[in-house]
């Protein structure tokens, strides 16, 4: 079982690139340090864009889960 609590989940399925990444960025901007945000994306580009951005921005990618046709990225605001 996951040892984190998702504070906010964004359903960005059907949203074209860069929609899901921009949704995640907006949500993390509004979140407090330590909170966890999840984003659901069906855009293939997200599999590269989201992990790359999370690393560059110094946050933590806690999980990448396949969820039907979508991928769920779970990110902790680390700073």
């Amino acid at each position, binding site marked *: 079982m996951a040892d984190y609590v998702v504070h906010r989940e964004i359903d960005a399925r059907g949203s*074209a690139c*860069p929609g899901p*990444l*921009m949704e995640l960025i907006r949500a993390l*901007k509004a979140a407090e340090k330590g909170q966890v945000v999840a984003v659901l994306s069906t855009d293939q*580009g997200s599999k590269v864009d989201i992990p*790359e*951005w999370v690393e560059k*921005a*110094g946050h933590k990618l806690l999980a990448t889960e396949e969820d039907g046709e979508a991928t769920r990225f779970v990110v902790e605001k680390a700073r």
Partner: protein
Amino acid sequence: MDDVVIVGGGVGGTVTANLLAEELAPEIAASKVRIRLITDRPEHIYKPAFLYAAFGRTAPRAYRRPQRELLHPAVELVVDPVNRIDAGQRQVIGESGKSYDYSYLVVAAGARVVPQRTPGLAEAGEQFYTEEGAQRLYKKLQDFTGGTVVVSVIGVPHMCPVAPLEMAFMLDAFFRERGRRDQVELVYTYPINRVHSNPAIAAWAAPELAARGIRTETFFNVERIDPQRKVIETIEGTTLAFDLLIGIPEHEAPPFLEASGLTDAGWVPTDRHTLQVKGHDRIYALGDVTDLPVSKAGSVAHYQANVVAQNLAARLRGRPALARYNGKTFCFIETGADKATYVEFDYENPPQPVPASRWIHWAKLAYNQTYWMTARGVV
């Protein structure tokens, strides 16, 4: 009598009204249909001109026309900023207190910039997405002697997705023409890991920027701007100093739409093919207000207006609405030094920019004049 109300006096609303009036002339003459266009100002403004206005290459008389002059005589023009839409009662309520009943409603109210959402941007940043902004930037550019100029895309989505690239290219040409390019560092920033949200446009633009010596910063999401120190701070933890900041602000649909319960995350949820507002059979949305993954550009509003007008005319005549929007988009891209290219794409087919040429630049300048025929629904 059926009442069609169109909210918005930009390209989308104006073209929809004119096409409908032309098509439904017999019904309008027989008082079976009435078409009203409600707008917040008596003048129509061609917003793509602002990019040129920032460089002093156009003037208000070229991009402003009385809205009445552009409308088919059968369209009733109402200048009354909208206060709210009551979808249950099928009414548009104006700030004047008057209400306007509709059988069908077209929401074409556009988008507006909200620089105040980014701390420090309104105080320290320039922009060219409003007439006042473009005129202010023009003065700043005349006085600018040297230093770092940053073109920073802060809000996505924004109007005219290629305009920030065009601004960067035109700045490069502007300073070269004045022999000042060596005194200016040009920097272009974008929120994701390439220079444009569309991969094909990004792949074309990246080497074009590099060839002009324009430095790029990607994964660059502005958190705040320090107006005193003239420094941008990003949520990625980086900083960037500037002498002149041209920041593309966040955008939103007009606030009355949110107050009317017609938005989701800031934009109007719209069916990508029928252009009906989701959950509202009698309301259509087009142009910049929609949540569609297409460019917030005049060409999109123009193509969508064709679809909405065809479908409304069909429904008003009791026929099936068969027209579908396929994501068609067309954008000229100014590349500086009196050259331009263009992109054309839709939901299924990505853009393929062609080499920039003087001919395409002239086509764009010609279109800036021909626009008034587009607004009238002629071309």
